[in-house]
């Protein structure tokens, strides 16, 4: 819509859970931080409810483009349980006796 009166926010979200934009990710990559594990700790990408199912493939492609590494050789982060959000109380109660 050329001449659209609406505000052009230009928000380009890569991690929907944690509201992180691709520009924020690229800024770190430009500083030389091309390790997904480090990006995760610095930006919280992939640490929300979906556990990186949405953002990881996109960020891995960015890292691959920046480093020249093939996408398949960009290391992912560790896949630790739990794979889905679970209340601490539920875990703490443990398994009920049969």
């Amino acid at each position: 819509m050329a001449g659209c009166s609406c505000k052009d926010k230009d928000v380009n979200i890569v991690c929907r859970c944690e509201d992180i934009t691709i520009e924020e990710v690229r800024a770190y990559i430009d500083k030389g931080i091309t390790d997904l594990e480090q990006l995760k700790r610095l930006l919280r990408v992939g640490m929300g409810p979906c556990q990186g199912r949405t953002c990881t493939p996109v960020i891995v492609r960015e890292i691959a483009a920046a480093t020249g590494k093939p996408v398949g050789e960009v290391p992912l982060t560790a896949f630790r349980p739990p794979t889905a959000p679970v209340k601490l109380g539920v875990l703490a109660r443990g398994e009920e006796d049969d």
Partner: protein
Amino acid sequence: MRHTEICIVGGGPAGLTAALRAAALGAAVLLIDRNDYLGGQLIKQTHRFFGSKQQRASERGINIARELAYAVQEEEKITVLTEATALGYYKDGVVLVEQNEKIIKIKPKKLIVATGGAEKTLLFPNNDLPGVYGAGAVQTLVNVYGVKPGKRVLMVGAGNIGVIVSYQLLQAGVEVAGIVEAAPRIGAYWVHASKVVRAGVPIYTSHTIKRAWGESEVEGATIVQLDENWQPIEGTEKDFDVDVICLSVGLSPLTELLWQAGCKMEFVPELGGRVPVRNENLETSVPGIYVAGDVSGIEEASAAMMEGALAGLNAARALGYNAPDLLQRKAEILKELEGLRSGPVGEKIRTGLAKVTC
């Protein structure tokens, strides 16, 4: 701790078929699914399948889901846990599950992972505006809950899902302004694509979405043409007045449990991302862990059902169950799968599978 012969994670087309085939040989099966229903993505597939009769041609996914779910519930050897989410796999072979805020530990002799896939997303300015949906989500809204996502939709992606969901939106009385496809040709079968084309929906190949517009929700979108290097060509922008942007840009396999189990994984773009290396029995590099359906590579429901059947038979066989015609059953399924993956349409899948099947 619950012990079972075979635990199957995921009650979609692959998991249900695996359960039925394994149980038919005599194996005790524990099937878990995180939803409160069985059938997975089949329950929203209101279109008819096509292909051969064995591939359930002319049946609708929703009816196949009902039939499989009914058969699974009737089968004495199968125990079903719904609203049960697999939280993790541990080195001692235990699957941790949460059901109704209770923890269950399952120790199976064999594990079949049939967790399916998740929708991929796309980067473009304002992609967080309300009105930007995944195509799968839109299909659930419309076909399962009877809710229209909006009045006028721009579909991004002309694979089978994008094209089928576009047609189902038209059936629901929602306008489809156009379908955008970055590749020079559509990925969908023509049997589906020709329906939307006949209905007057334009398909823009070699185009992508450039941006969404809107203050607090989607009010429009701009698309742009791509050159042969997938770069946008300035001056080719087109604007659309739409209140929904629907992303149908592929799926990625839901492989967390396999990573936790230490299965060898390979990046295979043709199969949607990193997928497990498997042998022809669909067993991963970790003995006793099998895969079937989209988790092993994004394909179709028909292929998922056949892989499920194979994984179910093989897991039961590895436990010592047998039948006089077992090898014949396996050979029939393999032949059907080969047929399904034959020709130019199956080329991508064949290339992908060749990289991870040992």
